[in-house]
């Protein structure tokens, strides 16, 4: 059995805000195997993007840093590298090389003054040491692989000449240019229309089947998780509150937050009957807490209908509900 592509344990990422250290992510364990897609899902401020930025060493330097934990990456050559504490130069050799990245907004992650082809060829030249000519040919081939028609012409165009969906395809081509073992996709379809989102999800699944890379898929959209991920980790206020195979977690959530989120997602065809019955849509009461003002104990307790005194006393550990599904809820058995 191969070592996992990515193995995070005990990660704690802090931000220094107004003279105080505030943990944006804590107690985070996560592994991704090759060919596996793991979704990190949560609402704004839950720490999902901070987790992905921690992996690639792109936390805002002045205020953020990794305080504890380890992040181990299996690289293309099979060696395992610890990413925390790596010097910037070595980290640069990993980023865009062994780890590919796709972000939410394709317009801001592409440079407007370089052609699409030049931008895809750049990491190939830098990391794989290929000539300009060979890298340019690779770029065109990659554009074809991500389903861009007429790739020769598109490679010579600038980002503004492409539609949003095309641009996201181009950033995927760039992310895959060095044949990474891990692809980090941070809300890659959030800025896209649903019909284009469906295209991009299909594309990612297809590319993964061909290349066998691990994918960390960061999203707030539970439907997208169900569509693309093998396993899911649900984050709330900086901690994973539930994790497991999507088929288990979504069929039987073992944390009240997961259950509440799933109820809050509008399901086609259901609202009509609720409206006819005069019932409001199911919601989670209250607001997502500020990380600076987290309650003692379980962070979700103030919004939780099942909370008991013990929930407010200490942060619950992760309980193994099954051999594969974990819940950070004292009352997971009651769900």
């Amino acid at each position, binding site marked *: 059995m191969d070592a996992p592509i990515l193995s995070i344990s005990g990660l704690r990422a802090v931000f220094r805000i107004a003279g105080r250290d505030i943990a944006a992510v804590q107690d985070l364990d996560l592994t991704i195997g090759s060919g596996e897609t793991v979704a990190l899902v949560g609402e*704004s401020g839950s720490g999902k993007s901070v987790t992905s930025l921690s992996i690639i060493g792109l936390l805002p330097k002045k205020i953020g840093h990794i305080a504890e934990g380890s992040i181990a990456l299996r690289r293309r050559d099979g060696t395992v590298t610890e990413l925390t504490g790596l010097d910037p130069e070595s980290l640069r050799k990993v980023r865009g090389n062994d780890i590919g990245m796709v972000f939410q907004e394709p317009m801001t992650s592409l440079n407007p003054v370089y052609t699409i082809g030049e931008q895809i060829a750049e990491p190939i030249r830098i990391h794989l040491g290929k000539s300009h000519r060979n890298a340019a040919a690779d770029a065109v081939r990659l554009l074809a692989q991500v389903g861009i028609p007429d790739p020769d012409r598109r490679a010579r165009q600038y980002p503004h000449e492409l539609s949003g969906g095309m641009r996201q395809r181009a950033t995927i081509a760039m992310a895959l240019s060095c044949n990474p073992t891990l692809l980090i996709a941070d809300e890659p379809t959030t800025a896209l229309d649903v019909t284009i989102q*469906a295209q991009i999800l299909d594309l990612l699944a297809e590319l993964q089947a061909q290349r066998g890379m691990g994918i960390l898929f960061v999203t*707030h959209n539970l439907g997208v998780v169900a569509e693309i991920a093998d396993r899911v980790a649900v984050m709330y206020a900086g901690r994973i509150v539930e994790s497991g195979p999507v088929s288990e977690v979504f069929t039987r959530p073992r944390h009240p937050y997961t259950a509440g989120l799933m109820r809050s997602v509008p399901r086609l065809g*259901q609202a009509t009957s609720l409206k006819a019955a005069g019932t409001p*849509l199911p919601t989670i009461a209250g607001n997502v807490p500020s990380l600076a003002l987290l309650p003692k104990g379980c962070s979700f307790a103030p919004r939780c209908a099942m909370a008991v005194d013990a929930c407010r006393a200490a942060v619950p550990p992760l309980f193994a509900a099954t051999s594969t599904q974990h819940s950070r809820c004292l009352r997971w058995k009651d769900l």
Partner: protein
Amino acid sequence: MNAPFLSVRNLTKHFAPTAFSRGPVVRALQDISFDIARGQVVGLVGESGSGKTTIGRSLLRLIEPTSGEISFDGIDITKLSAGPLARQRRKMQYIFQDPFASLSPRMTIGQILTEGLDIQSIGNRRERRARAEKALAAVELPVDAYDRYAHEFSGGQRQRIGIARAITLEPEFIVADEPVSALDVSIQAQIVNLLRDLQVRLGLTMLFISHDLAVVEYICDTVIVLYLGRIMEVAPAAALYARPQHPYTRALLSAIPSLDPLVKQGRQVLKGDIPSPANPPTGCVFRTRCPVALDACAGIVPPLRATSDGHLKACIRDDIA
């Protein structure tokens, strides 16, 4: 049967190039007609570039239509001069998508809520404050929000402030433009419930704009599906979800990812992108992505016509139902 409260006829909006943007005319809206009865909520759904916001803004004449009529209660607002238009706008309000961009960071919530009353010269200071506090209560915010600033509130709370601002003038009609799109999932349903509650309680007529068909289902009586500046389908909400008639509506519904990982239904993925409104396809604008398009679809713009079960659809094919 009363005349409809809001009536839009042949609304067309073309954005002409300006001195600094050479290029073709952008045909944002083409020949849009629909009615909204008093107290009804109509959903306007479509992808980016379909013209949703252009319709919303045209209804309040925040942008000038190129041609067409927009009547409120029998008054055609496209022909009103500034004075009467301002008086008419008292009855019409807008809720914006982004609760961060749409609230001034330099004004207190009280100033934000009473600004409209000020402009419309409604009441004295005390009465304005009373109205604003009533609006805060209606959106379930504490009264002490009045003296605070927008940055002190979360996204969901800010959107409540945006809603409070819209209702302080006691309008009859509200355009809610993607009011929950910027919010977290657990907050979205709270805001939809609030809007529904206010709509029923205050007897509001509403146009609810969203790119997400799943969001509009609960709050809307009727749904209009828009593509590239034209109406594709209009139907009562329940009927639209149960029996979508237009191939675009079907594709849109099918593209929404299902929450059930065990049911991977045969999803129909549309090919390609939405074409540019500067150069829309001839005939049916959807034909370039339509899985069931025929040669004939390029020839004519399909008229919006009634089908057997109360839908209106702009598609020449009757054999695909």
